[in-house]
């Protein structure tokens, strides 16, 4: 029998990465990269390890993914010795190593390898080779350092990437100077300041919503408040006195606005808890352990606690001023005895808050049914807070239908089902007080299921006296689990790069298996190391942002030579950020560069441009479709239309795009004018694309040629209007003159540049 949390590495004792790397594979490449990586690690380690189902057996193995250097060599040697021992010939036939995995010799784990499968054949080869003397080339040589030949982004570009990514703005001169002076050492302090800005918290909430998706719960915001507990308060706005607004239409609009703001305020509460914890340098474990929730003057009215806490608000009319508050334990509507089960037990008289886990928003976003039995919530708990996707890779079984019909409760009896359910179901039981699809408080009428593993967490049963605060009990344990720190570090990695941390490769027939495993391992070591420091720093999430920002995985930017070997290419396939900006991010970048957002990406084009609605569309598109390519063209056309002429109309020192060129500068007339135009292009390249080009660099040359060609072509054509166009060329309602076609040529240049990867990606 296997347990679910198969070889889930805790990485508690990981060695710092510091770009260290694997040593020479021990005892040889064949064992380390073939037998161990493809069979031992994937098929045996799950049970045959300390803490595993087969820890009592004589075949106990060690994890190697979290290890480097000497400790890795030691573990490899110990694993090799264990394999060698199992490979000893037996009088009654083949060695155990070849028979146990195929389910023979009473292997308790039953069949883990199909006879003659690739894995099984590898074991056969291992047995065959044992008698052979090792050739030198079989031992292998140490691999090249993982980052060998990889170049890092320059410090100024790193700064710009971070300010745009996390604060939606360009770097300030002072920040540039600091980085220029002290380089990477100053990234931390600069980030500390960025992480005090409101824009950072906007980005933080947006990023964590991508992960928790709490904004996507069903229905209007206030529907998290049950009729049975909040019937008198949840629709407070309907009776709110707006009589001071005399005009009926205005009064109605005010009511609508108030309703919208209330709904938005209440929906945002889980994400505001995250922002509150980070803003106040609280341990990030509080997103699970906080014994409070976040409320605003509006949402507090919905919960019926406004009068009790109103003095604490700076502005009671601000619908979005959030502060921590406790909810009293829930009482049934009208104290009616019929509603007895809806009365919440509490030894503190308060609702047993457990951070996000106990928010009605989270519970409503992940509802349950009579047969789901809170398993979805348990699954999301593992995914969100421990970084484990229990559904990621399910084992194939011979006949699942037969198992289902053979057992009355297959999840407790059939080994293939117990594998997961023994871990999932106890956690499901911890959510038992919220047994409905609306996210409301309400235990199951018939009591919790007897035909499930009892509520608890990974072998620890929930004590009866803690039942009323089961989620707090879960949160407390989770906060101490090393996997929590790793999961949160992975979440920050996602926020910074837009993609999930690498998963270990499973397909041993993939020709790039070893390369992918190395890529996974190197990234895992980095994440684990940062997670360790995160925990040591009292779970201050800001540290994770700072450490990842400095990490070579985030800074990798290029190569010092082309890669010829496919293996090496596969190793580096995920390296570097190179992220297509999402609609929100692109709007913020546009605002930072042009002074105002485009506005269309957040409205009618959000989903079309790969955004999410947190409900049915929950994953951002990482690569542009043709439709997105069209939107990029519209955006480039529209922004240049809106900003080029307007920028030229400003005094030079006020201009963002063209501080040093004028529309009467015509190319090809005087060398000095051409030089000024080239300097103007250098400025545009820097502002729009973060390029540091020289006036005669090849890309400046290309842009210059475009400018020249447009002007020259216009001069050749007859009937060209001497004014800019009506739609793109008006100032104060009047079409501006463009006698040489230079304004329109600059518009072509800006359009061209806005379609570049350097603008559309980070």
């Amino acid at each position: 029998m296997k347990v679910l949390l198969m070889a889930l590495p805790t990485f508690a004792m990981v060695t710092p990465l510091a770009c260290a790397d694997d040593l020479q594979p021990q005892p040889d490449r064949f064992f380390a990269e073939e037998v161990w990586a493809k069979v031992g690690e994937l098929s045996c380690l799950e049970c045959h390890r300390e803490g595993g189902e087969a820890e009592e057996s004589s075949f106990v193995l060690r994890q190697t993914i979290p290890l480097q250097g000497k400790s890795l060599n030691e573990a490899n040697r110990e694993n090799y010795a264990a394999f060698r021992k199992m490979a000893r010939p037996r009088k009654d036939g083949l060695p155990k190593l070849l028979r146990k995995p195929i389910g023979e010799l009473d292997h308790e784990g039953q069949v883990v390898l199909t006879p003659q499968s690739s894995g099984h054949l590898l074991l056969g080869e291992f047995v065959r080779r044992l008698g052979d003397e090792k050739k030198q080339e079989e031992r292998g040589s140490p691999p090249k350092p993982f980052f060998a030949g990889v170049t890092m982004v320059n410090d100024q570009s790193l700064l710009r990437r971070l300010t745009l990514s996390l604060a939606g703005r360009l770097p300030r001169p002072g920040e540039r100077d600091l980085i220029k002076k002290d380089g990477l050492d100053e990234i931390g302090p600069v980030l500390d300041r960025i992480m005090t800005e409101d824009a950072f918290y906007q980005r933080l909430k947006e990023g964590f919503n991508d992960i928790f998706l709490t904004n996507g719960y069903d229905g209007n915001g206030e529907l998290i408040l049950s009729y049975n507990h909040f019937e008198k308060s949840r629709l407070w706005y309907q009776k709110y006195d707006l009589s001071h607004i005399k005009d009926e239409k205005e009064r109605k609009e005010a009511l609508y606005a108030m309703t919208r703001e209330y709904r938005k305020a209440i929906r945002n509460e889980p994400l505001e808890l995250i922002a509150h914890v980070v803003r106040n340098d609280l341990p990030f474990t509080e997103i699970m352990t906080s014994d409070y929730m976040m409320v605003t003057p509006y949402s507090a009215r919905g919960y019926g606690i406004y009068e009790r806490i109103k003095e604490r608000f700076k502005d009671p009319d601000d619908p979005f001023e959030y502060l921590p508050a406790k909810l009293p334990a829930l009482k049934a509507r009208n104290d009616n005895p019929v509603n007895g089960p809806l009365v919440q037990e509490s030894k503190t008289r308060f609702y047993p808050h457990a951070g996000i886990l106990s928010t009605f928003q989270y519970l409503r976003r992940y509802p349950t049914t009579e047969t789901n039995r809170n398993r979805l919530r348990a699954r999301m708990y593992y995914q969100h807070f421990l970084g484990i996707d229990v559904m990621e890779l399910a084992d194939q079984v011979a006949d699942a239908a037969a198992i289902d019909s053979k057992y009355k409760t297959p999840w407790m009896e059939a080994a293939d089902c117990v594998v997961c359910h023994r871990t999932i179901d106890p956690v499901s039981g911890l959510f038992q007080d919220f047994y409905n699809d609306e996210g409301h408080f309400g235990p199951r009428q018939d009591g919790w299921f007897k035909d499930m593993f009892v509520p608890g967490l990974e072998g620890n049963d929930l004590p009866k006296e803690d039942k009323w605060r089961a989620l707090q009990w879960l949160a407390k344990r989770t906060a101490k689990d090393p996997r929590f720190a790793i999961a949160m570090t992975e979440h920050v990695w996602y926020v910074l790069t837009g993609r999930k941390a690498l998963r270990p490769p499973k397909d041993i027939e993939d020709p790039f298996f070893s390369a992918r495993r190395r890529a996974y391992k190197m990234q895992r070591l980095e994440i684990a190391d940062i997670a360790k420091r995160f925990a040591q720093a009292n779970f201050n999430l800001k540290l994770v942002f700072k450490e990842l920002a400095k990490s070579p995985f985030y800074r990798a930017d290029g190569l010092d030579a082309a890669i010829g070997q496919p293996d090496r290419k596969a190793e580096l396939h995920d390296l570097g950020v190179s992220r297509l900006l999402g609609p929100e991010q692109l709007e913020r970048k546009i605002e930072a560069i042009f002074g105002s957002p485009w506005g269309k990406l957040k409205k009618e084009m959000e989903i079309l441009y790969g955004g999410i609605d947190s409900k049915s569309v929950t994953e951002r598109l990482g690569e542009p479709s043709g439709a997105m390519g069209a939107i990029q063209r519209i955006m480039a056309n529209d922004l240049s239309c809106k900003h080029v002429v307007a920028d030229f109309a400003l005094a030079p020192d006020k201009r963002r795009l063209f501080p040093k060129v004028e529309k009467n500068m015509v190319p090809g007339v005087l060398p000095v004018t051409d030089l000024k135009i080239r300097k103007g292009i250098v400025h545009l390249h820097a502002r729009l694309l973060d390029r540091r080009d020289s006036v005669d660099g090849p890309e400046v040359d290309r842009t210059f040629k475009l400018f020249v060609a447009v002007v020259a072509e216009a001069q050749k054509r007859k009937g060209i209007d001497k004014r800019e166009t009506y739609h793109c060329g008006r100032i104060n309602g009047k079409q501006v003159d463009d006698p040489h076609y230079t304004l329109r040529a600059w518009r072509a240049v800006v359009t061209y540049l806005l379609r570049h990867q350097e603008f559309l990606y980070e």
Partner: protein
Amino acid sequence: MRRDFIKLCCQAGLGLSLPIGAPALLSGKSKEADPYEGPYYVVFNASGGWDTTYLMDPKGVNEINRLYKEGDILTHGKHKFAPNAKQVGKGMSNEDFHKTYGNELLVLNGMDYSINNHSPCKRYMATGKLDSLAYPTFAALVAACRGPETPLAFLTFGNYSATGNLVPMARIPYLPSLNLVANADSIQGISRLPYHDDFAQDLIEKTLEQKANSPKQKHQLPRTEHSASMLYAAQSSSKALKRVEAKVSGEVGKVRLHRQSEIALSCFKAGVCVSANLSIGQFDSHAKNDRDQMKLIPEFLDGIDYLMKRAEELKIRDKLVVVIQSEMGRTPHYNKGDGKDHWSIGSIMFMGNGITGNRVIGETDDGQFLTPISPKTLALDKEQGIRVRPEHLHQALREHAKIDSHPFCKKFPMKVKEEEKLIDLFGQG
């Protein structure tokens, strides 16, 4: 030449780089990709797990169905199906569906999903591979193989939609969204109001093309190189979207599958799309199975009917290849809440171009357990037969689409043993 170039761009998913060689500015107008002319692939997903005993695999025994008995089961040609005309409110009854499409419908009953959890089952059904997160769905794969240069090669409206990094997925939520992107170089999409004079626009495009073709000043990471290629391909191919404009119907269906079908068909007709993943959810009928399935199956069949009829009007019906599936079946018994839970045995249906209809392959018994079939004869074979699993079907689909020897298929092999390959599943002889 152009086609080859964009193909190369898309192949960047395999780590290839852009070709080198810069044409001079204004040496010729940038050409649009040729329209893709079919076949068009549509995968219908009944997301959540359909009850096959209320459609193509009727039982009526052992209390499997409360709405009919074994004697009520209907037939059309080789097909047996559950009666539901009396229960249908909105949508299409099984009776009407089989009457209309029975002659072109291929049904495979008794497919083994192997497991019964939504997430892995969806992945397995969509890709044919259970133990990998990297494999593309069939719809994405066929799009990448057959029409990588088309701007919306792979359209998806939900369900598992991984692409294996072979081709971008496109989401077009509403029909008017197509109008929005159809004329990207004109103000508010109005053709007579271009942002730039035509020569300036041409110069912009040519300069971008020249840049894409030029040697890079620094060596790029594989990821950056891949992104650059995908971006250029997306922008370049998007010009072809203007062909869609005229095809956009003013009638925007409020019915989910009508809307999705309309968008997909508009894109097919304009030659800008190869495959579409259509999906409706809520089939997960753990409570009130009969109520939910009787509402959703007719809606689902009505969606298929809508697609076929509109395709007929657009004169592309004969180019459609339609796969009709769900990620799991429902148990052969009701739970206490009148619902049915997950069941790892189910069915799949096909029709369209290159598929011989009026055929039923495989079966389940009175307990809804599958009977193995011979992969060679497709006949029932309890002793020597195989359990048909998603990889067998995907292998057959790849062969049907004539992409099984394409490098992308080799990159993501099905690894079905030669002796287990389903011979002539689609009845083409």
